[in-house]
């Protein structure tokens, strides 16, 4: 690397080459064997143990939901004034986590961030499972769950239609559209890889299932032509969609009059927070998967490094939003607003607000230092802090704002019950169980997309003269 002697006319990319997306000159068949080999291998023991634990937690969560449905929302700690508590907190928490998947698959695709190829499949899957967990809560928190269909605009004998100008109805449309579009986008990306699984399958069941799901994909350029166009347009559609979903969620609060909710900063603040929390969850899931399945050459430290930078960026945006909220409360001269923020940081729930601030704003600042972005323990530690911090953020905004609004006579505290806690734990069980099933049966990294970022995928690629071709064309392992 004789960078100093290079004349100034040498292009920037030659003086400072980009780090390779896939390390160690891995060949295409090596990538296929690595990733397709994961669902093909014998089910490991740890998988059975983990899914037994997460499945049990999920089952208990389902029991809690059934207990709620058969008894009533009184089994939760919700009360008046805190009518929205852990239910909506958890809803916003889970829907926020989903946003990272769509950001990686759509926005980074439009920005031509090629490093996304190693993580987009798993993140999109995470999105789907997080949105499933989120969608449970609005359904069950209404009390009379059998009336949920009233949210759908269908003609009914009462001739009552939903209020289309209500943010709660926007939310129904936004979340259901988001889930549907995410499923379509995820499955479209999965089809070429399912074809790989089909062509490699040895068992009859594998051949049948993967063959059915691959829909007869043949990888012809006349197919890729439409496929790429559809993928591009779906990415273009998902980009405003993902920004709209959390904006709409924030409208649920911002259009109300509660001090602490009624702020115009909410949509961008919520979206940044969603991406922030989502990236932390992607890393939380993918770092163990990377170690277990030895994905180090495909999911490299460079990938983790850029993801940490995004966490740092979005975490700082969130920190800016927290401080700006405080400033506007002070500068806006609205005594109720001012009180809401004094109460938030110094009231009975001060510990929640300070946990939020520490976990989301202070601790991610570690990522300014390169060594912390490239250390498994610090990265995992920060991600766990962010996961917790983002939950606290929603709790602080939603429940704490409700405990003390305008009239001191209507103030009240909120305490969760065991059903609250176990339902939330149950959604974690559902989330991880789905994710375990996903990594067991589907290729968790988009093989066809990772292959496009290899140097030899370029139609104008010339193999290096000395030695390079041998390592690239290594035989089937």
């Amino acid at each position: 690397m004789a960078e100093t002697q290079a004349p100034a006319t040498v292009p920037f990319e030659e003086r400072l080459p980009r780090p390779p997306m896939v390390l160690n000159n891995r060949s295409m068949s090596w990538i296929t064997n690595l990733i397709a080999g994961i669902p093909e291998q014998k089910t490991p023991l740890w998988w059975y143990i983990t899914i037994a634990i997460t499945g049990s937690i999920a089952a208990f969560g389902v029991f809690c939901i059934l207990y709620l449905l058969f008894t009533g929302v009184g089994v939760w700690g919700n009360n008046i004034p805190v009518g929205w508590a852990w239910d909506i907190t958890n809803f916003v928490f889970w829907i926020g986590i989903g946003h990272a998947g769509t950001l990686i698959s759509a926005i980074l695709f439009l920005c031509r961030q090629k490093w996304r190829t190693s993580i987009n499949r798993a993140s999109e899957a995470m999105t789907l499972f997080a949105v499933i967990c989120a969608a449970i809560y609005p359904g069950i928190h209404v009390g009379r769950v059998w009336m949920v269909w009233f949210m759908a605009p269908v003609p009914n004998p009462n001739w009552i239609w939903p209020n289309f100008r209500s943010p709660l109805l926007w939310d129904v449309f936004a979340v259901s559209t988001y889930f549907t579009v995410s499923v379509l986008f995820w499955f479209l990306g999965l089809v070429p890889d399912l074809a790989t699984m089909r062509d490699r399958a040895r068992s009859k069941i594998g051949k049948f299932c993967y063959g059915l799901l691959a829909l007869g994909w043949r990888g012809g350029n006349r197919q890729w032509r439409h496929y790429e166009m559809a993928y591009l347009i779906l990415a273009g559609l998902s980009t405003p969609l993902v920004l709209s979903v959390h904006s709409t969620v924030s409208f649920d609060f911002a259009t109300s009059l509660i001090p602490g909710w009624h702020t115009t900063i909410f949509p961008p603040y919520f979206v940044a927070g969603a991406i922030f929390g989502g990236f932390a969850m992607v890393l939380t899931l993918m770092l163990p998967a990377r170690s277990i399945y030895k994905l180090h050459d495909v999911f490299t430290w460079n990938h983790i490094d850029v993801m940490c930078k995004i966490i740092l960026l979005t975490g700082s945006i969130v920190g800016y939003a927290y401080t700006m909220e405080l400033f506007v409360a002070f500068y806006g001269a609205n005594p109720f607003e001012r009180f809401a923020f004094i109460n938030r940081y110094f009231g009975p729930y001060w510990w929640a607000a300070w946990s939020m601030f520490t976990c989301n704003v202070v601790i991610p600042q570690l990522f300014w230092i390169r060594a912390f972005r490239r250390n498994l323990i610090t990265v995992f530690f920060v991600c766990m802090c962010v996961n917790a911090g983002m939950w606290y953020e929603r709790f602080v905004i939603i429940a704490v704002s409700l405990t003390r609004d305008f009239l001191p006579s209507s103030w009240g505290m909120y305490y969760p019950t065991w059903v609250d806690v176990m339902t939330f734990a149950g959604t974690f069980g559902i989330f991880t169980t789905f994710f375990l099933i996903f990594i067991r049966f589907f290729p968790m990294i988009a093989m066809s997309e990772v292959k496009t970022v290899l140097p030899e995928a370029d139609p104008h690629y010339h193999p290096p003269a000395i030695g390079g071709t041998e390592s690239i064309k290594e035989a089937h392992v």
Partner: protein
Amino acid sequence: MTAAAARKKTLGVIAEFSSAATLYQAAEQVRDKGYRFWDVHSPFPIHGMNQAMGLRKSPLGYIIFCGGLTGFLTAASLEFIPSSFLYPLIVHGKPVNFFTVPAFFPIMFELTVLFSAFTAFFGVFVMNRLPRLHHPIFDYEPFRRVTNDAFFLIIEASDPRFSDTVTLEFLEEIGGKDVTLLYEHD
């Protein structure tokens, strides 16, 4: 295989290429020869292959636009017909006339995206004639590697310029390996 299959109908000729770069150059030559019913198969979309094959941009975008427009109109009628005519719901004393239209935007946006996404998803499969779970090409054993690391070029027998001998020689000439005639199986 060939002796028994020789009596059967020829489907086309297939050649394997060693890399994306050689496939790209081969595609340019096949295009320049004027073949029409042919395709290249690769494990991933090759950048610029549409030009190399002489294909235009996929028209899917126009179809998706129609889908999106349908979604927008569906949302508009779904919202305005009940809210303005069937059941004008007065909330907070706000009017139900056209000036409240911004409050209807989010659902219009969501349904536009939803319908466009469905059109994109089903459009790509309809345009690709999928699902088609079996295709004669799957009988050619080496073709299994197309989803792994192999690159193929196929010229179909239905092409007006196709000839068992000339096309086969042409593909060998432009660097194709294992050039094979594909026959119909019963």
